[in-house]
Every structure is written in C-alpha cells, then in structure tokens.
C-alpha cells in the first residue's frame, strides 16, 4: 500500500513538477529569445549557387509584385536584358 501523501510530499511534488516544466521549456525560450538556428533550410540548388558566389548572408530582395504593378516598362526592359544573358544554373 502506498501511504497517503503528507503536505510536505505534496509541496515537494508540486515544486518538482514546476522545475521540470521550467527545465523542459528553457531551451525553447532561449532559442526564441536569441535565435541561433540557421533556418530556413536552403533548398539544394540555392546552396550550390551561394557556395559558388561565396555569398554567406541573406540578401532581402525588393518586392517583385510591387514593381510589376507600378512600373511595367522597367520590368519589360529587365526581362529583355535577362533573356539575353546565359543561364548560369545549367
């Protein structure tokens, strides 16, 4: 038979559970506060291109759709120029 719990046992148990929960979530809190994960995972061909170009940092691009909406002529000109360039990925 298990003896009925005393108040000391109950307090220790509650305290233990709280500490367990704290320890369980501590790494997650640390990672959220100061993210060190390298995500998002880069898809393979982008990794290859980056290695070739030796680019390490992410470079945010301009919003493509904004350009398309507001200045179609510029987009057309750029598209014409790109069409003439050789495809570096092949």
């Amino acid at each position, binding site marked *: 038979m*298990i003896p009925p719990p005393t108040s000391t046992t109950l307090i220790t148990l509650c305290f233990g559970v709280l500490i367990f929960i704290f320890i*369980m*979530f501590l*790494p*997650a809190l*640390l*990672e*959220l506060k100061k*993210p*060190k*994960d*390298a*995500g*998002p*995972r*880069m*898809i*393979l*061909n*982008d990794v290859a*291109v*980056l290695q070739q170009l030796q*680019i390490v940092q*992410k*470079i*945010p*691009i301009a*919003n*493509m*759709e904004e350009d*398309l*909406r507001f200045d*179609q002529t510029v*987009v*057309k000109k750029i*598209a014409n120029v790109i069409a003439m360039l050789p*495809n570096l*990925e*092949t």
Partner: protein
Amino acid sequence: MITKLLEVFFLILTALMTTYLIRHFIFTLTVLKNAQKRKKAVTVENTTYQPTVSTLIPARNEEQVIGRILQRMTELTYPKDKMQIIVIDDASTDDTGKIVEEYAKNYSYIKVIHRTSKEWGKVKASALNAGLKYAKSEIVLCFDADYYSQADIIEKLVAEFVDPKVGAVQGRVTVLNEPQNIVTRLVALERVGGYRIDQQARDSLGLIPQLGGTAFAIRRKLLESLGGWDESILAEDTDLTFRVYLAGYKVRYVNDAECYEEAVENWRAYWKQRCRWAKGHMQCAFKHSLKVLKSNNLLLKKKIDGLLLLNVYFMPILIWISWIISVLLFFSKPPQWLNALLTTIPLSFYSFVGNFAPFFEVGMGAYLDGRTRACWLIPLLIFMFLYNIVICTKAFTDLLTSKIFGKHTITWDKTVHSGSGNSYIMK
C-alpha cells in the same frame, strides 16, 4: 457493467495509440538506418527521360506571391519546349490576373485561364480541374502560388515515372518564411518531421507516401481516367493519393526534389488551414477506408498504413476521450488506481510526444537536416498538439452537423499569402 465497458474501450484506445506510436518509431528508425545510403542524384546532365510536362498553378488573390513563382518557372532548367505552364486565375479581385498576363505575353509556354466569379468553384480542386482541360502533356505538375521550387525540380520528379507502375510523385516541402515568428517556426518543424521522416520512411518501406496537394507530379492519362480532382472533398490531395493506389498505381516520394512554401503566419490562419485539412482527411476516411480494406491492389502492409493514415485526424479526438475515461476509471475503481495509472503510461506517452509527426520524428528530421539548434523548440510543439485536439474536434463536429442536419458547412477557407517569404529568397 459501465466500468467494465469503459475499461474495454480504454484498452482499445490505448492499443490504437500504441500502434501509432510504434508506427512512428519504425518510420524514424527506417530513415535513420537509410540515412547513410546516398541515392544517385538526378541532375540536368544525367537526365534521359524527359516527358512533356504541364504545370498547373491555381491562384486566387495571390498578387503578393504569383510573380515569384512565375519568375521561378521561367528559370527552370527543364527544356522549355517540353513545358506548358497553366495559371488558373480563380476569379481574383486583385492584380493576380494582370501579373500573370504580363508573364504570358513574354513567355509563350505560360498560359492563363481567367475564371469569372460565376465559374469560381470555391475549392482548389475546381480550379485544378479547369486547368486540367487545357493540359496536353504526359505529366501534370501542381504548384500552389506561394511556392518556390528548385530550378531542377521537374527533372527530379519526372525521373520516377520511368517505372510504369508509378502513378504520381511527391516532392519535399520546406518552409520559406520560417524565421518570421513562433508559428512559422513550429510549422517548419512539423514539416521537417512530416516530410523528412514520415514521407521518406513510407516511401522506403513501400507503404503509402501521401500527395501533399502541391509540388507533385501525376500521369495525365491516369488523372483523367480517375475523373480529375474530386471537388466535394476538402483534402483533394489525400483523396487523389488513395484513388491512385486503388487504381493499382503507386506514389513515390523524392526527398531531393525540394520546394519552398509560405507557411501560415498566425494562430488564426493555422486554425483555418488545419481545420480544412482535418475535415478533408475525415471525409477521405469515410470515403476510402472500406475500399482500402477490400482492395485487391494493395498489400496487407499498405492496407494497414493506409487505414492509419486515413484515420490520423481522429486520433486527437480519441486522445481527449481517453483522458476523460482514464479519469473516470481512476475515481470509479480506487483500489486498482495504480493499474489504471500504469495503463495510461503508453497513452500519456503518445499524448505528450505524439502529434501528426511525433516529437522524436521532428527531432530526428532536424538532426538529419543538420539543424540541431532547431530541436530546442521541440517542447513547444506540445501547444500545437493541444491546439490540434481542439481543431480536430471542431472539424469532426462540423462534419457531423453537416451529415445529420444536411447543413452545408464544408467551405474552403483559403490561406492568405502576404508575400512575407519574398525577403528570404536568395538572389
């Protein structure tokens, strides 16, 4: 008598949870065992099989992201004379149509279909069926508008069709806007477990890899013979998976064929998306469970995996029912409470480490991806798991309501894409 019944029901539920738990352990160990084996990579240089490919991109109000995927389509390494890209502008009220028209003008292989608000079928399957009418190629590929693929994804997907028994091929989905906030980071973790381990293991074990609704390819003739996508099912991808298998074909999963997606950015959007998935899966379970059992085209292991896959969205509901029963048993049989507690161990274990992709799967997937630091977030998945319990219960209640009262509650809550992922694309 009631106590006896509860005990039996509780034991059945415990056995069911343990089955899922063992299944996921087998998946994880299989992938871990095969991790060292390197499959010969399909590259542009060594590809000999190059069928014609029609890519369907359904888009409704996707002005923030449609330009990104169309630009990517123009950068694909697959021969352009073998490509046809069909964008289905599904009665968009924003500038989606204009952007697509601009691309269609500049690239002859891009075609746009504009659907009016009268034609709009309110479900993705309807848009895909509209696009399928114009597809003339041997293989049909599907992408959502918020996706961004590898440049050589088509080569990698179509290579599997050399085997005539392969009916469809699924690629891997990776979250693009992962660093955005806690929701996107947790969704990314779920995806890691789901694709890197779950899908990979099912493929390796010859079970049932699932079509994910996007970044997948299917034989056009097979798709047409199946009658296209079922517009009455919210999870048209799961439905198609089982129809492919029941027709005697198989689905392959290619982990190297990767594609970015823009994950939902807040809990509300997560709720809508998962509720839709849950309802769709449950619809598929009702539709296909018996057919899977009776099928002559499926081996026993595929039947078991198929049934477990079809019914996975019922599990969160059964879990809270088990919790209630265990509490009732605990109080109704005080002298044997220790036994009851011992019985709950596997149940609690599943409950705490189990989600659709259990925590150990996620951890192993992140480890194999070389992202050990991401594992630090895994304990937070418990909140997603608890959230999923509520979501699945709501989905089930909605389905029941619509069945009993004939009330139509099956609506497609479309995920809104803000284009936040654009800033993470490497250029």
